[in-house]
């Protein structure tokens, strides 16, 4: 069967190979450390392991694990948009690996929410008529992310339904796949923008450099797609190096053209808003906020320069560096908006505790571990046409 699949160009096939390697063992150890911290969290409460407080009720378990984590998991969304909506079939080989990374990213972001919810045993209230409060941005985010996780598992199911001997189900799902693909583009558009809308109700508690009001959803949506593409470049490069496969540079270089266009559009919106609101003056005051603002802007501006010319886009090193910077920029936009730029009153401080960081690192490790196991055992990555 694998031989047959390999005969079809770009058809995905399992990589095979050993599952127990020094890398996977290290990743498993880090995941285990996170699990230990989480036991303490559930026995002794959030305060026992985190530094969150009433001035910073949201720490990195929300702002990184959920907000940045889900934005980093937008590869599947961004590629689906390109392949199925803009009909750019040549990017098809990127679909499955990107979708798999998104699947893990989102599933873990969803699970992380439970770790952070103080009264997690009530979480089902969000979906329950009578409790559900539809004016809440949080309601929209929670429902939309949950549905998207479900949709992604369905989108990915053809990769494992065959293995489970459920060919009939696979056929049925394949017939409706266009609908799941459409939902798989709609839902992230909704909740990734809403993650920005969460800040609207905070009003003047958010520093003017990040309180973009009605433009917040647009800015968060644009950067989510940008991050999605950047992560695809990042992952494709790492997979090529890590699994000793040929680089997909020509394909990624073409993708980089889209990234560049979207990046310019984002910069116009972001800077235009700051200028129109007059908030830009804050960037020239010497404050912690303005410092982090400039770092964030540099992370977006340098890729705009790196990817401007075809020569830059065709250079795998430059491309990878630009992707890294974009990921850092999207990370900073969220960290700055929700933590650096948040102030509810004087005298509050927050910096993540060691156990908080252990959980976040552990979650990332678990995600990479699961990704490695999946691509080795399931048809995810395109089979290599020429035998080595």
């Amino acid at each position, binding site marked *: 069967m694998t031989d047959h699949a390999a005969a079809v160009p770009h058809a995905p096939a399992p990589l095979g190979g050993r599952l127990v390697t020094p890398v996977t063992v290290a990743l498993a150890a880090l995941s285990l450390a996170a699990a230990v911290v989480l036991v303490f969290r559930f026995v002794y409460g959030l305060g026992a392991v985190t530094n969150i407080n009433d001035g910073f009720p949201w720490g990195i378990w929300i702002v990184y694990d959920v907000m940045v984590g889900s934005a980093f998991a937008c590869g599947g969304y961004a590629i689906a948009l390109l392949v199925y909506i803009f009909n750019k079939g040549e990017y098809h080989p990127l679909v499955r690996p990107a979708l798999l990374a998104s699947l893990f990213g989102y599933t873990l972001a969803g699970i992380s929410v439970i770790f952070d919810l103080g009264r997690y045993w009530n979480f089902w209230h969000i979906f329950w008529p009578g409790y559900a*409060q539809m004016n809440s941005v949080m309601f929209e985010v929670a429902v939309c992310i949950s549905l998207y996780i479900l949709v992604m598992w369905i989108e990915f199911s053809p990769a494992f339904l065959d293995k489970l001997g459920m060919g009939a189900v696979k056929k049925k799902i394949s017939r409706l796949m266009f609908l799941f693909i459409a939902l798989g583009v709609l839902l992230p558009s909704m909740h990734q923008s809403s993650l920005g809308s969460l800040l609207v109700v905070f009003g003047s508690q958010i520093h003017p450099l990040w309180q973009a009001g009605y433009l917040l*959803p647009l800015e968060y949506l644009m950067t989510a797609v940008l991050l999605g593409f950047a992560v695809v470049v990042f992952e494709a490069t790492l997979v090529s190096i890590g699994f000793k496969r040929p680089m997909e540079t020509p394909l990624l270089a073409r993708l980089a053209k889209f990234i560049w266009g979207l990046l310019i559009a984002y910069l116009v919106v972001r800077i235009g808003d700051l200028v129109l609101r007059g908030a830009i003056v804050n960037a020239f005051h010497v404050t912690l906020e303005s410092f982090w603002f400039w770092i964030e802007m540099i992370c977006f501006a340098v890729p705009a320069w790196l990817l401007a010319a075809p020569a830059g886009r065709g250079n795998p090193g430059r491309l990878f560096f630009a992707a890294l910077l974009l990921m850092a920029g999207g990370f900073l936009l969220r960290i700055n908006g929700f933590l650096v730029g948040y102030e509810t009153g004087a005298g509050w401080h927050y910096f993540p505790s060691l156990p908080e960081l252990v959980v976040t690192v552990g979650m990332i490790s678990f995600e990479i571990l699961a990704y490695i196991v999946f691509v080795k055992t399931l048809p995810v990555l395109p089979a290599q046409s020429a035998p080595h």
Partner: protein
Amino acid sequence: MDRRDFFKLSLAGGAMLAAGADPALARESRTISPDALGLLYDSTLCVGCKACVSACKEANDMPPEFLPKTEQPYWDEPLDISGKTLTVIRVYQNGTMEKKDQEQNGYAFIKKSCMHCVDPSCISACPVSAMQKDPVTGIVSHNKDACIGCRYCVAACPFGVPRFTYDQTFPQISKCQLCRHRMKDGKYSACAEVCPTGATLYGKVSDLKQEAARRRALPPGSATVYPRGRLGGPDQSYPGVAAKYVDHLYGEKEFGGTQMIMLAGVPFEKLGYPDLPPRSDAVKSETLQHGLYGGMVMPLAFLGVLAYAAKRNVKDEDEEEERKGGRHD
């Protein structure tokens, strides 16, 4: 669909989004109930005895709080409201602290507790209706059995009021609920009930506003009478001297209005109260959400376009793959 079509569509979507932000479609600000209940806190009458803090603890069955470095913890000594403390009296100090209610070289007391906003951010933020506003009394209440502990209310409140018990295995939100649990016994807010000077006064917000207007109209230094406890309740008034106020009834206009209103001799900014716009951010947030998701019109229209494009492009691909697969067989 080619790129040009998509851009046209995006523009149309943008126009709809802009329409969503149009004031004509905006979510209206909530207005205050004629029977709304609240507190009038007069900083110039407060003597800082903290009887209110103690009575609040007792009425709400909250545990005492000790300063981290206290060697012999004998009494409750909260510095701020918290998961264990619903109200505190804090002090403003400047320079030599000679004179009460004076900004320079003076001092002043200030109460901190839930403002019971007319249009509260916490209610707009809460995804599970755990925060509720009583349609008659306007009291902003919290139902811990509905709460999922997401703390969006804690982050959203501009006054930093809802607090959370992070140190508990099974934590909960705490906030002042104006002693609504005592009302069935004919009682009212414990803080106002015990206040010896009437600095914290309970009553209908409309009456409290009248009382505030009366005080502000008095020439400073003139003789007057101050009610205590509950406006409209048994007469517990006592004679006093009119104070010199800053020209500001805090909570009258701030953030769409609040049901705890305050008078002081020192600017409220110095007393730790934020300078807020006249409209609640809940209005803005809900206007945005209604504009984007009202009737699910935009999401469904977008889904239709996406499904159409996906259907066409996925089919092409299947056929292509089958063709190619067939050739290779």
